[in-house]
């Protein structure tokens, strides 16, 4: 697998899963555009670590929930590079509340960042992939299909993301753009620490049949595969990376 000479945009790549994906693609030779919103220091560190691998890294701050900021990202890429090969739609946010407490603001905030951003980014990315083809991978979560406490609006946004991934896969196929998603269970990241603090999830080490939690690199490995030519015939799929959690629910019940 080599991404030498390819240019990849990874949204939300200062920390966690996005950072691991950026580093994985960079380790295979891709130049990376690191996007962040709230944590500049982490993004700058990710860029430094990418550059240490001998490839280029560019940092751009933008809230992908804001259409004008999405335009800024792609205007920059268009002006500076003139093309894009890989888009990883990873940036996510969310409001952890029970159904009764979800207001319009929380709904829109989460949907705009987690679902609409893929639409807006894919529209702009497709233009930059014209004539050369490309890969788009979105990052989902098990909450799209399984109910987690206080996860409603995020889960719904991830379901929308996965549905959009299927539509994009078909509509962009004639442009030689492969579109897929990766859905992970709880991954050991800073974001998860936030959820622990808010009491949303328990330590899921004990519900992963493999015996450890999913780590960002597990997700990054699958994303890299989906970005490779070996995955050419996989289209519109959501690949689950959860150590078997979702197929082992009943098997684990007695543990």
């Amino acid at each position, binding site marked *: 697998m080599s991404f030498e000479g390819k240019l990849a945009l990874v949204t939300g790549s200062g920390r966690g899963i996005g950072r691991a994906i950026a580093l994985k693609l960079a380790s295979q030779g891709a130049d990376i555009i690191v996007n962040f919103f*709230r*944590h*500049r*220091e982490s993004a700058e560190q990710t860029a430094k670590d990418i550059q240490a691998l001998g490839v280029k890294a560019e940092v751009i*701050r933008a*809230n992908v929930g804001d259409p004008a900021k999405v335009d800024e990202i792609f205007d920059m890429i268009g002006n500076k590079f003139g093309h894009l090969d890989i888009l990883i739609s990873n940036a996510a946010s969310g*409001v952890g509340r029970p159904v009764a407490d979800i207001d319009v*603001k*929380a709904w829109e*905030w989460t949907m705009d960042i987690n679902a609409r951003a893929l639409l807006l980014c894919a529209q702009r990315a497709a233009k930059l992939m014209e004539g050369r083809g490309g890969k788009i991978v979105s990052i989902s979560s098990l909450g799209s299909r399984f109910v987690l406490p206080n996860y409603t609006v995020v889960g719904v946004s991830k379901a929308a993301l996965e549905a959009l991934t299927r539509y994009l896969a078909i509509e962009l196929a004639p442009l030689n753009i492969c579109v897929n998603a990766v859905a992970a269970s709880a991954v050991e990241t800073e974001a998860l620490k936030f959820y622990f603090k808010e009491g949303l999830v328990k330590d899921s080490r004990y519900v992963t049949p493999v015996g450890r939690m999913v780590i960002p690199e597990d997700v990054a490995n699958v994303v890299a595969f989906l970005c490779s030519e070996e995955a050419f015939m996989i289209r519109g799929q959501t690949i689950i990376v959860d150590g078997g959690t979702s197929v082992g629910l009943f098997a684990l019940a007695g543990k």
Partner: protein
Amino acid sequence: MTVEEQIRDIIARITRVDKSIITRQSTFKEIKADSLDVVQALVAVEETFGIEIPDEEAQKFQNFGDFVSYVENRVAQKEKV
């Protein structure tokens, strides 16, 4: 309008509280600002003053006064440059 007045207006608009209850000693909880309100207030303040407030800094704000002081300092630094 002073920096403080502008930030008070932004927070009152986002949290829909009467701005007269927002004093420098008010905590975000007292202003009824949840974590989403705080992020949205940070973004609106950043755009109003053309500055960037990293989360690492924002997490140190104990009350409205801390937020205002931080922005006042940043705006003053910016004007010096």
